[in-house]
């Protein structure tokens, strides 16, 4: 249930709104957005229908950047140049709203009691295939073959990992990349030589099945947690923001869209943790909320 019953009433005027708000985009952001949509409808505007799809960041942009497109597009990456260009071409005003922070979690099988800590470089080298056996990293470790896992190219998480962590070097050929996180968690939880990566939320929800590795970024090992994940905190190198993009024209035309956007920015920090995202710094969220209020 919601832990903040007053959330809906903070929202200045209590005018009853109706109509629909259409959200599509990233599957990573989906749990957060779905949670907020639901809470919004329960606590703030019961007659507004917020529908959330998850066709993916890029596919979402396709239906966002057209006439009469969706109102919001969730994104696990920032908008690309060509996407921006398309919006300009259409004369469409869009606004980026940073929602929360996600920490790429490096996980291993719970039975794995040796690789509890790795340096950032070791992680990179593992996924680049420079180590094939655990014993290549540390001669005390077993000489079993390392099996890497991760979400497939469909996911923003993969893109982030590939672009920002591996620095666009090719990932090891036999990496087991999956479309479904359910599959991924299962695979790691059942392969004692597994090492995988995915968003913090999936680790957070499956702590009984997989174990997070502490990463040494230079100042000793850090495990991902709501506290460590932040853009300037100890887990910063593996932290990425997640966004939603707002069609500002829609927000001006449809009060429910704007109202929802404001509500989201005012309340996102209450729900982020619940679904495995680290909250934004308070000021950043407030700033975005205020910018939105000015659109009124």
């Amino acid at each position, binding site marked *: 249930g919601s832990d903040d019953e007053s959330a809906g009433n903070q929202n200045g005027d209590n005018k009853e709104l109706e109509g629909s708000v259409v959200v599509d985009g990233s599957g990573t952001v989906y749990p957060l957005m779905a949670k907020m949509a639901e809470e919004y409808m329960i606590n703030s505007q019961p007659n507004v229908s917020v529908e959330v799809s998850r066709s993916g960041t890029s596919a979402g942009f396709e239906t966002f950047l057209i006439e009469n497109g969706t109102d919001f597009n969730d994104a696990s990456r920032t908008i690309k140049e060509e996407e921006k260009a398309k919006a300009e071409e259409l004369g469409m005003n869009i606004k980026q709203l940073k929602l929360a922070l996600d920490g790429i979690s490096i996980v291993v099988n719970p039975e794995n009691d040796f690789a509890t800590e790795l340096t950032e470089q070791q992680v990179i080298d593992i996924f680049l295939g420079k180590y094939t056996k655990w014993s290549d990293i540390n001669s005390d470790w077993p000489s079993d073959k390392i099996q890497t896992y991760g979400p497939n190219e469909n996911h923003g998480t993969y893109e982030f990992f590939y672009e920002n962590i591996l620095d666009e070097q090719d990932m090891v050929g036999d990496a087991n990349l*999956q*479309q479904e996180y359910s599959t991924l968690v299962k695979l790691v939880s059942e392969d004692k030589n597994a090492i995988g990566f995915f968003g913090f939320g999936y680790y957070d929800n499956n702590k009984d099945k997989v174990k997070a590795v502490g990463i040494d970024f230079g100042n000793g090992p850090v495990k991902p947690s709501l506290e460590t994940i932040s853009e300037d905190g100890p887990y910063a190198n593996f932290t990425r923001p997640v966004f939603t993009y707002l069609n500002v024209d829609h927000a001006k035309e449809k009060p429910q869209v704007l109202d929802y956007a404001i509500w989201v920015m005012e309340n996102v920090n209450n729900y982020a943790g619940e679904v495995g995202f680290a909250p934004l710094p308070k000021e950043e969220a407030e700033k975005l909320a205020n910018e939105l209020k000015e659109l009124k």
Partner: protein
Amino acid sequence: MATNSNPNKNAVPVREMIEKKKSSKNISSVFEKLVPTILFLFAIVSILTTIGIIYTLFSETIEFFKRVPITEFFTSTELNPLSQNPDFGILPLINGTILSSLIAMLVAGPIGIMAAVYLSEYASDKVRRTLKPMLEVLAGVPTIVYGFFAFTFVTPLLRSIWPAVDATNILSPGIVMGIMIIPMIASLSEDAMSSVPNSMREGAFALGATRLESTFKVVIPAALSGIIASFILGISRAIGETMIVTIASGSSKNFTFDITQSMQTMTAYIVEVAGGEAPAGSTIYFSLYAVAMTLFVFTLLMNLLARYITRKFREEY
């Protein structure tokens, strides 16, 4: 006009009334002429559906082949649609499709035909009439339910017996698909075997054959074309099956023959691409149609083959 020459007939002047109504019949006779036209329009829908399928698949597939050479598509074993240097080889998908169908047929073929033999040759009328509809319930279970079952029941069961099996693998959905297809094969084969005249069996029994011998040496050979057709239709069904593999086989685009591993079929690829990040107009979007086209051709060929076999090799007894 008077009909009084015929007093007997006159209690009700039916004749007269009918004649009178005839003048008003013009409206209904227009309707009468219209009916065939209306019905024709309905019948055209099925033709339009076919044209629609072929047209959409074709036009977008051609677009795809402008970007990816057709030879690469059909010969490459690499499928990495989303990577920076994407590869579009359909072989991993065809491999996954063939393996899963093969596993399904290894389950459904023998079991289906044994069930058909039991129902057609051994079971009494009463037993047959209870068992057959019960078996057909299996065919009516939605495939999404089978997918759930494969993922949450069959896979864990397999893994407890054979630890090498991955959490997602092609074996479990293959087996479950096979179970789904059993009723189809059993039912069609049973039809084929039941239509072998009893005089064949009598001929065999009179030579001292046991029921088993009459079945395998006379009835089955005589019904062979029907049985083969049922197998081919079963394969076609397995090739086109989507949800079971989507849920239970993961989405690795491996080109491997190791059935304990995750693989993707053509159908599951379509679900992944259509439901995932496939911006319209991108190569990956068009690849959806190219794969669907391949799938369509595969199943069409199977269906035509099945029909050809039943027609061509129909036994004359």
